[in-house]
């Protein structure tokens, strides 16, 4: 009986929570905040789609990709070139960019995914490094160092909302679709295959998981997400240049994915909020501080909460009575979870610092 009640409580809390969330997303953010902040949230939505793609390949499949920004850049430039040179509208390039990046991801992934672990990380990092110089080199197509200016779209006249609100709601809608697709495909269908691939490749292949195919296809899909996000970036910002896509962008996506929670769909949202807003706050204090917070947060997250914010939330929501204590209805407080983590961390440190006798 108590369990039923609690389950009901969890469900009703979720529904109320969901309504509140919708109110914030659709009402407060676009109409309650100044224009420039709406733009920042639009960018956060764009980053969330990109990080979701990265979660797929690095979280679910376990292949570390440090070159995600490269596909983001490709998507952004495809959209910019279509708009700038061929006069396309801002919206149609989005699926085109996704398709181009799907193909690019497949082509890159087939050879690259034969690499393991840190060698794949190394290979993808090098890809991220080459994007800038390649973009600068082919000036005729890409506009070289000067980049391409395409402008931001105007809201349709009959809707009566501002331009930045329209952009925000549009990217939110696209992101919603992308997240829904990801949730349905991954969390239901492929999850077991992908996580099995990640955790033990040998066992997975013995059990019949076609490793190469899954990895390459997931990499292609992950790049497609980056491409769609990139095209939306062009829409939101209205200008692309090689300097918009430095190595730090790929590393930022990685940071966001880890901090948000790698093997999770919702983690992408937390990660995107982190990488969008932490630099804004930190640079109010000091320009260099943002990077320090990034790096420090990454290290702290790996040591204290390796499953990211999403993992922490999941731990807090899960029922703690897995048969051991017999106490139902008591939830672990956040402080207890944190202290336990610190304890295990201290244990690891003391093991390494005390001399072996």
């Amino acid at each position, binding site marked *: 009986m108590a369990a039923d009640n609690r389950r009901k409580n969890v469900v009703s809390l979720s529904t109320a929570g969901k309504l509140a969330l919708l109110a914030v997303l659709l009402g407060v953010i676009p109409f309650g905040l100044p224009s420039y902040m709406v733009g920042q949230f639009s960018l956060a939505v764009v980053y969330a789609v990109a990080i979701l793609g990265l979660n797929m390949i690095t979280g679910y499949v376990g292949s570390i990709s440090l070159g995600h920004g490269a596909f983001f850049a490709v998507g952004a430039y495809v959209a910019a070139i279509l708009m700038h040179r061929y006069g396309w509208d801002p919206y149609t390039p989005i699926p085109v960019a996704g398709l181009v990046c799907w193909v690019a991801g497949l082509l890159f992934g087939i050879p690259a995914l034969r690499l393991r672990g840190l060698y794949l990380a190394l290979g993808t990092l090098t890809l991220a490094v080459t994007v800038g110089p390649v973009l600068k*080199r082919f000036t005729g197509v890409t506009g070289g160092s000067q980049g391409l200016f395409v402008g931001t779209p105007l809201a349709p006249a009959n809707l009566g909302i501002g331009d930045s609100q329209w952009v925000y709601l549009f990217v939110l809608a696209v992101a919603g679709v992308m997240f829904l697709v990801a949730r349905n495909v991954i969390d239901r269908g492929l999850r077991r295959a992908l996580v099995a691939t990640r955790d033990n490749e040998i066992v997975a292949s013995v059990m019949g998981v076609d490793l190469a195919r899954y990895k390459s296809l997931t990499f292609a899909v992950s790049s497609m997400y980056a491409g769609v996000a990139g095209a939306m970036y062009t829409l939101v910002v209205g200008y692309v240049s090689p300097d918009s896509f430095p190595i730090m962008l790929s*590393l930022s996506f990685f940071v966001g994915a880890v901090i948000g929670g790698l093997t999770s769909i919702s983690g992408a949202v937390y990660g995107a909020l982190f990488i969008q807003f932490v630099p804004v706050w930190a640079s109010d204090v000091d320009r260099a501080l943002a990077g320090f917070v990034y*790096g420090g947060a990454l290290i702290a997250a790996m040591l204290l909460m390796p499953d990211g914010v999403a993992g922490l939330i999941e731990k807090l929501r899960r029922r703690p009575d897995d048969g051991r204590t017999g106490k139902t209805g008591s939830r672990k407080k956040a402080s207890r979870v944190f202290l336990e983590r610190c304890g295990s961390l201290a244990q690891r440190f003391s093991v390494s610092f005390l001399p072996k006798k």
Partner: protein
Amino acid sequence: MTLFVQQLVEGLTSGAIYASLALALVFSFRSTHVVNFAQGEMAMLSTYAAWQLTAWGLPIWAAIAAALAISFAGGAAIYGVLVRPMTHSSVLQIVTILIGLFIALNSLAGFIWGYLMKSFPSPFPDWRWTIGEVGIGAEAAGIALLLMATIGALYLLLEHTKLGLGMRAAAAAPESSRLVGIPVNALLTVGWGIAAALGALSGVMVAPSLFLDPGMMLGVIIYAFAAATLGGFDSIAGAIVGGLIVGVAENLTATYVPGIGADLKIVVALVIIFATLLIRPNGLFGREVTARV
């Protein structure tokens, strides 16, 4: 022909710098079997330390020597605090921590010293010799001599001292070494300290021409990755040969391959890394590692 030889000489000079940073990567790889993504940033910080010492009045060679010592201590500290507790964690966690270190160190340099470029005094005199029509600067010769001296010192250390023997044992077979009484943890820490000092050396050698700023080593580390990949991450000889090959390939490709100017040189590194990892993953001199299922 003269152009070719001139480019060859310049390629060997940059190759020597890549080789020393690749040596650093090899030394830290031997301890942990993870590529230290933050090696370049550690080297950059060491170079800033050397610069700061010269700014406070120390003569350049004394500053470099002091920076090497500081880097040794710093590398050992980073290993003990951040890397050793993670030895039994997954590759993902270790890579994440190293990337966090990369980002944090880069920002630390910007925070302490700002983002304006600084000029770094060259430890070598400003001479230039000409052999035939090819010019060699004292800088290039000095870098080559420094690299050879380093290789000689490392060779003596590893092959002819008890410490070196212990380090090789600790890297190759840690559990067996522990059973025999070798202080494996201490020796792996020393390995990282030496790696940091080697990185500092490469930073100091490259700073006079690249000018000192927090992003100085970002290009160099990619070539060092290529060099270490080509040579094999656990091979010292490989790091040196790989570094020289990468340096020469970079320069010759930029000069002779149409379309690849100074901008696209970095693609050479990408091609080398991918070609090596796909064709001969252990590099030219690396050891084949087989794992039992």
